[in-house]
């Protein structure tokens, strides 16, 4: 059902990047290409037979320097469904925070001849640092407050399936924008595809000069919701806050919680999205999160596996000497 907005060249020119460290640097048609590639895996994942041998014999290492449940699981399932050998390496942040250890770990993984490395790290730029040092493709599964590209891609796929086109689509992202890599990747991705992106947060949780990224800034949630086609909620990242940014979660909900009443302000068919994990009763009420027609939250998780399969497939094509990619 590819809408005709973007065309892309054949073979490796469709996605000429060695790895996926961020949405920044991707052209709109390259984003589109990944979304198209993911569609086949959405279909396969819905069937009974959920495994192909495309990446058979390849080793994928998930190196997570920061705790994660859903993203790690999603990457693991994605790799396994493509037939790869997937190894998870969970490293406590404390032991790699200092000294050369991060680079040393990267060099070790490299020496083990992984065919792709998926990295999550608590510091912005850490994934790029590793990507510059290893020979295989590196996928960013979230670096600090910088980027989380596969999340943005899976969100785009979710939106595309429901709304078909992005041009002029009003997307409101509300929550802890300051500490959110999901917000940054989504802003870059959605703005690049032509959506009208609004961000909403109290000033303390809004990064400086974010309008330079092509978004409209709101502090009043009701105003930000007016006419929105998609409402994307983010949680408060208390663990990244030093000092007090908001008076209390209860007070936060008072101004920025997505309730059924507030959702009325958006378009009548507006989608509700959340990258998880949710704090029910804070940024989103349960009856909104579980809204059968409006909530896309479980669809997002489903699209996540397909997007990660597409990324692993595309990024290993050169290594697998696929025709047109080697």
């Amino acid at each position, binding site marked *: 059902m590819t809408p005709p907005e973007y065309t892309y060249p054949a073979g490796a020119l469709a996605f000429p990047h060695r790895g996926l460290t961020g949405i920044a640097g991707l052209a709109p048609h390259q984003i589109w290409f990944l979304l198209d590639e993911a569609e086949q895996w959405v279909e396969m994942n819905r069937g009974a037979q959920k495994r192909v041998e495309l990446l058979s014999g390849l080793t994928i290492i998930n190196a997570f320097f920061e705790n994660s449940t859903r993203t790690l699981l999603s990457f693991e399932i994605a790799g396994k469904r493509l037939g790869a050998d997937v190894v998870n390496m969970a490293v406590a942040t404390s032991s790699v*925070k200092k000294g050369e250890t991060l680079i040393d770990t990267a060099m070790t993984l490299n020496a083990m001849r992984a065919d792709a490395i998926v990295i999550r790290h608590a*510091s912005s730029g850490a994934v790029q640092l590793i990507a510059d040092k290893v020979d295989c493709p590196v996928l960013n599964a979230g670096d600090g407050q910088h980027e989380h590209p596969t999340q943005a891609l899976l969100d785009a796929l979710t939106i595309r399936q429901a709304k078909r086109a992005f041009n002029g689509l009003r997307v409101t992202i509300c929550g802890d924008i300051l500490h959110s890599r999901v917000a940054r990747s989504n802003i870059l991705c959605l703005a690049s595809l032509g959506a009208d992106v609004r961000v909403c947060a109290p000033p303390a949780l809004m990064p400086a000069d974010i309008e330079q990224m092509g978004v409209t800034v709101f502090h009043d949630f009701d105003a930000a919701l007016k006419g929105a086609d998609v409402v994307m909620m983010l949680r408060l990242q208390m663990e990244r806050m030093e000092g007090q940014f908001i008076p209390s979660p209860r007070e936060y909900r008072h101004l920025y919680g997505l309730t059924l009443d507030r959702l009325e302000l958006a378009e009548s068919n507006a989608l509700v999205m959340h990258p998880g994990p949710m704090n029910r009763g804070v940024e989103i009420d349960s009856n909104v999160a579980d809204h059968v027609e409006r909530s896309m939250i479980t669809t997002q998780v489903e699209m996540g596996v397909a997007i990660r399969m597409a990324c692993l497939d595309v990024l290993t094509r050169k290594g697998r000497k696929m025709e047109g990619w080697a």
Partner: protein
Amino acid sequence: MSLHAPLTVTGGRLLLADGSIQSGAVRCEGGFITAIGAEVAAQDGDTVHDARGQIVAPGLVDIGVFAIDKPAFHFGGITRAALMPDQNPPLDVSARVRFAAQSGKPDFWVHPLAAATQGLEGKALAEIAMMRDAGARAVCTGRRWIGDSGTMLRLLQYTGMLGMVVIAHAEDAGIVGNAVATAGEMATRLGLPSAPAQAEALAIARDIALAEMANAAIHFRNVTTAAGLELVRAAKARGLKVTAGVSPAYFMLSDLSIGAFRTFTHLSPALRCEADRRAVVAAIADGTIDVIASGHDPRGPEDKRLPFSDSAPGMAGAETLLPLTMSLVRDGVIDMARAFELIAANPAKLLGVNAGSLAVGAEADIAVLDPERPWIVNSDKMAAAAGNTPFDRQPVQGRVLALFKGGVAVRMKKIGG
């Protein structure tokens, strides 16, 4: 008395204390300059150095370095440096100050800066008078700002009485927090912890008010924003004992340089926006800034080959201090005489040392230099203990050809081309 023969540097263009440039010679005896001028000639038994028409200038005096890194200082023409108290352990007792003061001799002089507070924690005052008598030339808050205004006031009252200048780091710590970048589009795109540039002006405003109350002298080591410089300008106009310094990174670079997470551009204070960079250039031109200093802080891969926010701030700056200051001369921002006020005479005055200018009676710290000579900064081939420079691969002009400390030639490490 020196055991060395008297030195005469002949055939040079002398950069004199009054700012003029004159052909002639400089003669030094017993470690001091004894004669300067066109008629000065070498005498029998002198060591003679022919400057071959190059500039003969005072050795540079560098305020606020973090390490004693002699090869780098000598390469850069620096003969004296004021050492930051942020050592391990900190320079907060007289014994450590006395040791640091001896650590560069004979061919390099270290002027230790006394820690203002014990352990540089910003709480209890350190034994400043004892450190002064052990050789400390000024008092310094270190890398950090003293957050408690009461402590800062008492510090300034005390240093005012002792006649010592306080060298302050000007950034409001409550606003800065764990920031590693200046708030703005670049920090937002990179997702780096950032703080508004106004943290500097807030700190400067408070410290100027306290210094005025205490009638004490204060020097801000790095003033990097238009708002901060405006406060310094106004304080000077009111006759307060306020001076300001800056490192070349802040007039050469803006926060655009932190793109791609290059940790060599992780500095403290963080690099500012382009408008602030231009304000620094203007403040150097109009005299608001008194001192240009290297902030020399060599950091190896264990501190720098890390994610940006986990890396240590600081740059190796000793080798590029002269050429980057010379770039201001070539750009017509300042003239040669003013350049050497900024990198030699003013810092010497601030530290109260008898150096920093070519004058009879001054200590014979002399640099022979070619201000036009081109070379390329190469972080892999530096004299410094580490090559963490944001100016890597950048072509620069200005190179020291010979250096004399106390009238004795300094052996220079041969680096690069």
